[in-house]
């Protein structure tokens, strides 16, 4: 009897310990983000105060007004353009990466072809190379092609960055769908193409949505390559635009934080909308992928 009680107590202690650890990890991860969000709503002076002021004493939208050029005190940063650039680049590259990822993932899951294992491994290894390591060659080639400082240039980079991951995730999903479903659909009167769109695609939707969100977030948040390959308002993305707040002698922390919030919000909304798919996507597809 006492052994049972003891083991129950030890289980409770263990669980409490794990919860505390999880909480600690969450704090470590969330505090910087929280600090950025809070700082977006207070003046520069308060941000730099020592000792630090945690909760804004006079919350204000001035920082947002300022960067959008609405207040009296204006900052000449084209946030609107950056936002549109980011949106166009992230969305386009995500759609292309998804299209390639679906075709590739389906091919890897369903077909046998020469060099399949090697190509798959190659894709995964490519993913392991830090993008920044390729920035110099990409810069040189892009400038020769004349696509430096264009949205197209960045879209191509992001597509190639995202394709290995989308293929890997979507391949895992198609693998989970029994081949007999597509066969049954073909016997039922579908062409192979119809069988894909009516049966296999709806079943792999979670995985495709998850892959899409990850691809979008990668492109939306990417800074290193974008900072190398873009320089004008026609192509600069939001993360690169953050640098505009640093002048030779000053940094406008408040403006920077406000813009950071603008970057974070769409990403958060998107993640929230598809979180159900995202979790299903990562656990379901990832296990056997």
């Amino acid at each position, binding site marked *: 009897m006492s052994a049972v009680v003891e083991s129950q107590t030890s289980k409770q202690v263990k669980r409490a310990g794990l919860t505390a650890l999880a909480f600690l990890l969450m704090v470590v991860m969330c505090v910087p983000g929280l600090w950025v969000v809070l700082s977006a709503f207070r003046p520069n002076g308060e941000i730099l105060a020592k000792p630090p002021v945690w909760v804004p004493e006079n919350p204000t939208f001035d920082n947002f007004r300022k960067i959008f050029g609405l207040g009296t005190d204006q900052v000449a940063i084209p946030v609107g353009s950056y936002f549109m650039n980011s949106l166009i680049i992230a969305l386009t590259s995500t759609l292309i990466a998804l299209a390639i990822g679906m075709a590739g993932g389906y091919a890897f899951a369903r077909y046998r072809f020469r060099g399949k294992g090697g190509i798959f491994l190659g894709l995964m290894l490519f993913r392991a190379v830090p993008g920044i390591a390729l920035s110099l060659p990409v810069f040189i080639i892009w400038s020769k092609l004349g696509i430096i400082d264009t949205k197209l240039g960045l879209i191509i980079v992001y597509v190639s960055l995202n394709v290995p991951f989308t293929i890997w995730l979507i391949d895992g999903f198609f693998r989970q769908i*029994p081949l*007999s*479903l597509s*066969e*049954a*659909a*073909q*016997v*039922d*009167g*579908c*062409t*192979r193409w*119809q069988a894909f769109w*009516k*049966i296999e695609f*709806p*079943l792999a939707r979670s995985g495709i949505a998850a892959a899409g969100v990850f691809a979008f977030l990668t492109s939306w948040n990417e800074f290193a390559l974008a900072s190398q390959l873009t320089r004008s308002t026609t192509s600069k993305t939001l993360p690169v635009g953050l640098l505009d707040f640093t002048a030779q002698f000053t940094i406008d922390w408040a403006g920077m934080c406000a813009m950071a919030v603008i970057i974070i919000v769409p990403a958060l909304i998107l993640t929230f909308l598809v979180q159900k798919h995202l979790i299903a996507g990562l656990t379901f597809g990832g296990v056997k992928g």
Partner: protein
Amino acid sequence: MAEITLEKVVKKYGAVNVVHGIDLTIAHEEFVVLVGPSGCGKSTTLRMIAGLEDISGGIVRIGERVVNDLPPRKRNISMVFQNYALYPHMNVRENLGFGLKIAGEAPDSITKRVDEAADILGLTPLLDRTPAELSGGQRQRVAMGRAIVRRPEVFLFDEPLSNLDAKLRGQMRAEIKKLHQKVRTTVVYVTHDQVEAMTLADRIVVMKDGRIEQVGTPMEVFNHPRSTFVATFIGSPPMNLLPATIDGGAVRLADGTVVPVPERLRAFTRDGQKVTLGIRPDDISPVGHGLSQDGPGAEVGMVAELAEPLGMESLIYTRLAGQEVLAKLYGPRIVQPGEALIFRMALDRAHLFDAETGLSVRAD
């Protein structure tokens, strides 16, 4: 008319030959069961008829049409898969109606035909459920409903009962048989279970290593197996096979035991021929406890090593000429291990196979 004809049909995967040029004609409305151990090519043959596997050689006809290069959707067939292959994101009604919808059938007509099929299979209360909410037997029925609702020329079944438990399998077997009586259609049914083959088939096709071993009605295949393979594959428990030699009009077993050559096989044997004597457990019984006491027989003394009482009969494991032999005792008598008994072999039901080829000595 949906006669299915296979002419010299071959399937190769690279250099590996899986089906070695089989010839088979399946009559209109006939129920044919392809049976054999795993890897014998039965499923591949079915999938070639369905159009889910390319045909490496030969001709497949459904009705008058050569279908070799037609995709499955143009063959006017339907198929029940081993894992049912129900569309998980559709409810039962949508699953049943999917094929009709693809064919562009009007919604009213779809509803009517789905309701009819659901009625035949007792699926009406389940129409709004998804496959995940169904039991194994219900899923099986939905899969069959999906097959019949399109009124195809040919039904193909690929081991449809192998995922069910024994009791349900028996029930569904009967339902499939009833369904075929109701919806007269040509059926090709693949299984590795010889009981299913015996109970369902108009004709059984026994396959081995990508070749057809024997084609015949269940009773033909059971009573006149063409080879030792068929003899042991069809019938449970399997037929006993004892190596022997024909010696002066008698069958001499390895230990010298002599039994007469069955009368009906005498013309097919010659002296000195090495043979295998085949006799089913049902045809070796302790004297007075057999199925038939008349007809030619031979009596041999054997010691029971193990007995499995099954109620009104017992399986007896014994030994003859150094080989394990299964015998059957009909009646409630309990046999003790070690008990010596006189067994009677019903020789009119025994078989002789050539020892070298494994084929029956009978010319047919």
